[in-house]
């Protein structure tokens, strides 16, 4: 299955130019079965990447533009009384898609944001004492603006923790931007794999073996954040699980069947930044913290 990785990446790299690392991380996140949060200023290509990702992987997707007057029903769906059948009938909302593109998620009110909570964690939603299963696979790819932008509601920690990764795109380098202006951007995004293939890939990712010493290193990383006063938000067990999954996906993408400390280090900032940083604090602090953490813990003992 690994031979499909290269075409996927090359297509995505033509959609978003000059962002190989972030693109790979985004793919890793999906392969590891995690939700992805893309954060950057408006116009940096967040939505393009999200759309490209969904299309390339052959997933059904729906894009919801979050606004401050949005209600949970706008995402989950709504029960409407059907006069012919004399009964309430549930109309599925946009969340019943394999990929939900939650554009500018932090523009919505906390109430709406939290409507996503159950869906993201349990892959199901409950409305009016009915529980509806969501499609398999199910991903939330959310984009958000930096919090200091006007009219935003910061995501609560509980919801941030449910995103496997948060990536920032950043400004492209001049060469990539020039290529974009010259129209070398690939506009026709096509499907490279289908859902069955994606599920197979996810299984192979899970089968990547992690030796005891790598797990040990991972635990030491997590533990260091807990027993050290430098870190205001210690990392949760969910984070350690997520970190392992992400690292495995990274190893698999790199063509290996076993995990290396390098893989853990490669995904660690994306996985840990938004969990370590203080809510509402300067965003850079999370990145700086994960940087010091990586330097403080040695992969070998």
């Amino acid at each position: 299955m690994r031979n499909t990785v290269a075409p996927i990446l090359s297509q995505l790299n033509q959609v978003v130019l000059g962002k190989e690392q972030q693109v790979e991380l985004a793919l890793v996140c999906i392969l590891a079965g995690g939700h992805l949060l893309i954060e950057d200023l408006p116009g940096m290509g967040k939505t393009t990447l999200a759309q490209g990702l969904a299309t390339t992987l052959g997933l059904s997707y729906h894009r919801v533009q979050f606004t401050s007057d949005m209600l949970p029903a706008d995402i989950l769906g709504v029960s409407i009384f059907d006069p012919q059948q004399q009964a309430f009938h549930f109309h599925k909302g946009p969340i019943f898609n394999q990929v939900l593109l939650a554009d500018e998620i932090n523009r919505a009110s906390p109430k709406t944001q939290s409507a996503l909570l159950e869906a993201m964690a349990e892959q199901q939603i409950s409305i009016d004492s009915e529980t509806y299963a969501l499609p398999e696979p199910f991903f939330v790819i959310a984009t958000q603006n930096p919090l200091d932008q006007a009219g935003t509601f910061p995501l609560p920690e509980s919801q941030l923790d449910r995103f496997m990764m948060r990536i920032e795109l950043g400004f492209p380098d001049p060469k990539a931007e020039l290529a974009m202006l010259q129209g070398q951007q690939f506009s026709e995004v096509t499907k490279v794999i289908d859902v069955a293939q994606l599920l197979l890939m996810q299984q192979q990712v899970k089968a990547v073996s992690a030796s005891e010493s790598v797990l040990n290193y991972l635990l030491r990383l997590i533990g260091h954040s807990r027993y050290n006063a430098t870190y205001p938000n210690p990392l949760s067990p969910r984070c350690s699980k997520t970190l392992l999954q992400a690292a495995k996906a990274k190893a698999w993408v790199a063509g290996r069947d076993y995990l290396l400390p390098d893989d853990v280090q490669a995904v660690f900032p994306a996985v840990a930044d938004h969990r370590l940083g203080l809510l509402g604090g300067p965003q850079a602090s999370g990145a700086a913290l994960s940087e010091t953490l990586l330097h403080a813990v040695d992969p070998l003992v």
Partner: protein
Amino acid sequence: METFLKRHHLLLILLCYFTTTFSLFAQIHWLIFVLALLCIGWRLGIYFGRLAAPSVMVNRLAAILGAALLMGVVFSQGLFSAMMHLIVLGYTLKFLELSARRDINVFICTGLVLVAVFYVFETSILMALWGMVLAVLHLALAMSLYSAHLSQHRQAKYLGRLVLVSLPLALLLFLLLPRLPPMWKLPLQNQAKTGLSDTVNPGDIAELSRSSELAFRASFAAEVPAPNERYWRVMTLDQYQGNQWSQSQSIKNAIDVAQRGGHFNIEMQGVMQAYELILEPSYQTWVPSLAVSQGRANRANLMANYTLRNEIPIGQRTMLRLQQFADTKMHYIDLTMARQNTLLPNTGNEQTRAWAAQLAAQSGSTQQKINQVLQRFTGERFSYTLKPPPLGPQQIDDFLFGTQAGFCVHYAGSFVYIMRLLGIPARMVTGYQGGEWDPEGGFLTVRQYDAHAWAEVYLDGRWQRFDPTAFVAPERVEQGLELALPNEFLADDPLSLLKLRSNPMLNQLYLAMAQFDYLWAVWVLNYDNQKQFELIKRWFGEVDFFGQIWLFIGLFVATIVFMLLWHLKPWQRVRLSVEDKLLLRLQKRFKANVGERQQGETVTDYCLRLREEADFSPQLAAQQRANLLKFAQCYNALKYAPLREQQRQETLDQLRQLLRGI
């Protein structure tokens, strides 16, 4: 420059300084304290920013001038004192240049040397503990300086652990380190002599009897002598000058000879009984002994009057091993001695002379006449008291026919006087009589109030002991002073702890403390070559001197090894796998060139960095760079991939080869 020296460091330094110097207060010249005030004042001035630190020249000048001045003042006190003052001077002047860590190191080391000096002067248990406190204070200073990053609580814990760990080593050093005799002579401090003195006035021993201070303690190899046989002879006084008894010139000469090592040779007879004395410092050379004793190992020399003299004054608690030959008779007398011991002032004490003449005129043997004199003390109204009424110029007359109340010196003196009037050689003996036997501790305690005087008469070809006090107050000899004079005993000292001993619990406590003190004196203060030898013999069998050295080295090394093992715990160490060892070799190879792998750096990243930064020879560079990458891959596979045994072996071989190729 002085950022390392915090307020609490300075406080600790001052605390160390003052506790240490005040502990040595009696030994230190007052000039030092004046100097200390100046130096500390300057130091505080620097600390508060009022004064500049003195220049190096000023420091040197101060050191040289101070040393010269001090030497001029204390050099007469002997080499030891001069050296000690030099150390104290350095300790004091260090306040002028506490500018670097090194200076504080010097301060701490000097302080520790001074603590050792303190142990030379102070030997009691409490003082030993205090010395430890001083040492720990200095160590705490070092701790607070070098472990500033630790909290004070942690520092204290760490320090406590270090001290505890060093105790077994110290004990081992103390017990087994072969002992050499000291290379310097300890100074005799300007302390007043205590105990019995060379001359005796009638009131002297009564004075001594008011003191409950320790004189010495004794333990016996076999059985303890009966209370009325515990006559500890200290010196003989053979010269009477009408008011006091003293030593004649011939005895003084003999003392001189004995102090220089001369030994009066006599043939000892009968059974030997060994006993040990722990003498309290008297700052004199006399050694109390039972008749007739000789010293072992030439420390206490026998004189012609059968008393012992040490070669150096007893300035510290000293243990002496003596041997008593109870059956040996004191035969020795020569012409000078015979003359001296019958000599009296030509006139005076007419009443006594008349009485003696009357006695001499009677018929009967000498023994009968002596008995008659002694009977007089029992038969008449003589009383035994610590506070005899004052005597006029005719001492003997006043006592025998006037006051008739006196202490041992009065009785012994009158007896000797009468004997000499009868023409019989007689002398006064001073010493201690009795002592308190502690059956549990197994030692006899003799205090200053056991001081006593009696007489010796040359009769039937030997010196014989006569104790007139035993006739007037037999309980003094049988049971001691306390029971003989219950009302007068330590009357001037109402707070004396000894008086509380009627309370059984306090008595028990007192005995326990006395036993502990005794053991301390025997096993710590007087732990000498011989004790060491006995101890080693008991533990390890016969060992000669070189064997002892080897034994010591062996045990010392064993202790160090044990402590190292305890500290490093190699059985808990992670065993390095083969690939990790190879990685270490790789790191070692590039250590000088690029540096080691950094904290948090993975092996892959490290190899990549090496590839970029290391200098390779141009021909092999490409090959080596490729090998570096492969090395990282192989290492990662070995360490993290699930490999089968055969695969593993192959990869390992490959890794070795790669290392050779880099």
